[in-house]
């Protein structure tokens, strides 16, 4: 198992290497002039030439790439070209917000998707199944930002049930330790603030979780239906087990397998969706930061964020695959 993990981690290296090339090329192909972005109205040809020389932008692309790769290997993900703050420092401050939002969306999608999928499977071809299918079709069809705005308008502005902006009431002041609102509020001994933070999390989580919810629901339904027809389920019934035990021990345990894989794959979608969701809900996370960085042509930030997100995606899927080995004894990682 350890060997498998090491091998998988080693296998991630060429992926990240390839990605670094793609990102580098992509950033350099983007239209826009860093001089204008950085110097703004102070842009003169002379200043621009000096800046380009400082940033090494006049060197051949291969030299620039190797320099970029060298700093990556030293763990240096660069700094903002706008304010020169190191990428990693800024990223780590904002990332907890994105983790919180992503986990919120995942809890929503998994917590609702699996029961809905099981319900639809048990009543397959009935009106209930139709309703669940319609919900998931809706969830998968509607773009995150549209659903986000609808939620803001209906539950925030219209009904006034839930806050629609930020991670916590902006008028409240308390010390941030971990930058996880749900943890910091508890550390500060303020359960009232904790509740407020949870309330802030609800609408963005629903908006971001709608697509994974739809996918998880459908996969769960399909998987449960498929497993229900397996011979070993009939064997389990023939043993005289209760329907509940057959369902939980024999059907669900096997139905989980494809669902687990899909949940892992959804993490990529969630990180991407977080960019849009954070913008709609003025959520202080990596996503909104990246959107700002794109606007400012702060390409180091964009580049490094994508790289880190890719790394996270790889690690999450590695964790899922390892978890899969525990769920499925037929998989042997040797």
């Amino acid at each position, binding site marked *: 198992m350890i060997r498998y993990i090491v091998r998988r981690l080693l296998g991630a290296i060429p992926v990240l290497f390839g990605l670094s090339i793609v990102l580098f090329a992509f950033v350099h192909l983007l239209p826009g002039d860093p001089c204008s972005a950085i110097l703004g109205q102070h842009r003169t040809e002379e200043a621009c030439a000096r800046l380009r020389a400082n940033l090494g932008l006049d060197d051949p692309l291969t030299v620039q790439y190797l320099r970029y790769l060298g700093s990556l290997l030293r763990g240096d993900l660069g700094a903002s070209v706008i304010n020169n703050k190191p990428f990693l420092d800024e990223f780590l401050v904002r990332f907890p917000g994105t983790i919180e939002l992503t986990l919120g969306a995942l809890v929503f999608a998994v917590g609702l998707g699996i029961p809905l999928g099981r319900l639809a499977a048990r009543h397959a071809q009935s009106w209930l199944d139709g309703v669940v299918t319609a919900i998931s079709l809706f969830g998968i069809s509607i773009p995150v930002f549209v659903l986000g705005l609808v939620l803001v308008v209906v539950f925030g502005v219209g009904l006034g049930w839930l806050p629609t902006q930020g991670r916590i009431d902006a008028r409240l002041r308390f010390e941030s330790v971990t930058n996880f609102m749900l943890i910091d509020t508890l550390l500060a001994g303020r359960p009232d603030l904790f509740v407020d933070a949870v309330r802030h999390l609800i609408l963005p989580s629903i908006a971001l979780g709608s697509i994974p919810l739809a996918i998880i629901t459908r996969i769960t339904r399909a998987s449960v239906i498929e497993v229900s027809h397996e011979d070993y389920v009939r064997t389990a019934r023939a*043993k*005289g087990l209760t329907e509940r035990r057959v369902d939980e021990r024999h059907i669900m345990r096997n139905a989980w397998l494809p669902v687990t894989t899909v949940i892992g794959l959804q993490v990529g979608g969630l990180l991407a969706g977080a960019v849009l969701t954070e913008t709609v809900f003025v959520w202080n996370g990596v996503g909104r930061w990246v959107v700002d960085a794109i606007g400012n042509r702060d390409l180091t930030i964009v580049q490094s964020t994508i790289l880190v997100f890719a790394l996270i995606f790889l690690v999450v899927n590695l964790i899922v695959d390892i978890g899969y080995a525990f769920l499925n004894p037929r998989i042997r990682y040797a």
Partner: protein
Amino acid sequence: MTVPTTVTAPARASAGNDVLLEVRDLRTYFHVLDGTVKAVDGVSFSVRRGQTIGLVGESGCGKSVTALTIMRLLDIPPAEIASGEIIFEGRDLLTLSEDEMRHVRGNDIAMIFQEPMTSLNPVYTVGDQIAEAVMLHQRLSKKEAWNKAIESLRAVGINNPERRVKQYPHELSGGMRQRVMIAMALSCDPKLLIADEPTTALDVTIQAQILELIKDVQDRTGTALMLITHDLGVVAETVHDVLVMYAGRIVETGTVEDVLLAPKHPYTEGLLRSIPSRGMKGQRLNVIKGTVPNPFNMPKGCNFAPRCPYAFAPCAEYDPRIEEANPPDVACWLYTPAPGSPIPPRIRPRRPVEVGA
């Protein structure tokens, strides 16, 4: 609906209180898009304690559905048990609550399925799967149930059961998995074991071993055995009494010697003739002409008449029922006067048929 009081000849011959299972006029229908399939259409038979009976017929004749109906393992709907009684130790299984039925399943009646490769749950060890039933029915602790699982594996001839018990199904061969299925079925000492094509998916050499094993444990434990198969060779080696099924009905019953050596029903005769035999090299195999009747559109008279070489006038008109025959061992107008038919039956004695001849 008339409920026949007579049962199979072997059961009647030894009439007494040792009848374990009595199936009366069982009808299981499937309601599907194209109409209704009468998969089991008025089947009656009985099984005595410790008796071995074989249920024989070609694919789709209703053998498996009969077994699954007895176990009440069919999904209702689309299945419907349209009529009948399944009396097991004096209780009609069809009237039991789901809870009561669960105590019968795996405990009083156990079942082995055709596909050992897919009949075990891939994510649990074989020990887990055997112990699960034992814990449920015998109220043993986990440890005791685990030991019982090891014992059951040993009893079905698995070497080194202490190691095997911790293995997953994918680590075992097909024959080994079928042994595990048998161990699981026997772990709670059932009174009736239903084996549905237990050797069909296995290699010929393994088939022989598994049959030997089934016979052996059956002798040892005294459990009654209902063996479902399309393979007359398997029947000949394993059981005492035979029921031949065709298109949802039992068409002939008798001891294995009677039925296999001197069949009455033309269908049984056809089955025997179609077994390839030595000395037939280079010749065409004998087949029963025609095809199994369309389940949505059964012939009016005898279901077998369109394929029967001996069919005569009443066969196309009247539907022969085995329980109306005297003795009730064959459903064929060659042996029973057709009601209201002016044509007398061509009473034929049992006569030997040579396999493949």
